[in-house]
């Protein structure tokens, strides 16, 4: 038994996986916005992030893909879970909570945005993709982060530091009030 795949079939498999990833991503996004229970919404978000990470991998950016997994799935989604568990909101109220006109209007707006953006994307004359595929290697990314973009890099670290301090202050002040 030899299940080797001929080189001609490889692009087909690639496209199949790609379509699968698109379905996963869109399904996750829909689950995230439409789910009745909040933990399911977060699960949807995680599924969506996983799909997007897969698509990044397709785009020859494995480093971005893994950063997506590490930071979005490992940090942001888990932090959201934390917030849900700490807040423990009443989930039964969730279903009824859509003010009259907001739903249809939001659908309308969303559809318009899709139509405009996707229409532009499909109709525009894209230049032919470059022959040389960028390697997206960690080394290149690291070098440009610490040379060309070093200023931005430092600023982002300051933003992160301030964010940590700020969230600590916000979260602690509530607790102090509850204690005294």
């Amino acid at each position: 038994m030899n299940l080797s795949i001929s080189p001609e079939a490889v692009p087909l498999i690639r496209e199949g996986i790609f379509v699968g990833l698109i379905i996963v991503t869109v399904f996750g996004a829909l689950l995230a916005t439409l789910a009745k229970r909040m933990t399911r919404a977060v699960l949807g978000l995680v599924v969506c992030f996983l799909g997007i990470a897969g698509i990044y991998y397709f785009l020859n950016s494995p480093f971005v893909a893994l950063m997506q997994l590490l930071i979005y799935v490992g940090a942001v989604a888990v932090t959201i879970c934390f917030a849900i568990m700490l807040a423990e909101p009443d989930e039964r109220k969730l279903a009824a909570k859509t003010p009259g006109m907001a739903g249809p209007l939001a659908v309308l707006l969303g559809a318009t945005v899709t139509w405009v953006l996707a229409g532009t994307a499909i109709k525009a004359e894209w230049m032919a993709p470059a022959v040389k595929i960028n390697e997206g290697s960690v080394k290149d990314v690291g070098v440009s982060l610490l040379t060309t973009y070093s200023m931005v890099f430092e600023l982002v670290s300051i933003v992160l530091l301030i964010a940590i301090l700020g969230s600590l202050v916000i979260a602690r002040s509530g607790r102090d009030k509850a204690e005294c």
Partner: protein
Amino acid sequence: MIPVSWYLTLAAILFSIGVYGFLARRNVIIMFLSIELMLNAANLNLVAVSHYLTDLRGQILTFFIIAVAAAEAAIGLGIVVALFRNKATVYADEIAQMKG
């Protein structure tokens, strides 16, 4: 080779789902999730274009967006938790103290 318009269309769809979620849902945490979706749609565009132009700039910008999104998550969820401690609700339309 998958054309770049596919990626951009997918990003547009994700962004619109985010827009819908942000406008139609009143739960602060779900609104927050929708913002994350929109940020991800932007990232997807950047990485796709970066790939097709064989230019690393898009990827670098994506890193910065991811970092800022992480900061935003920390602050945003800190606010949600503090809000819940004080008002015991996570619904945006129940926080109407400033309404005259």
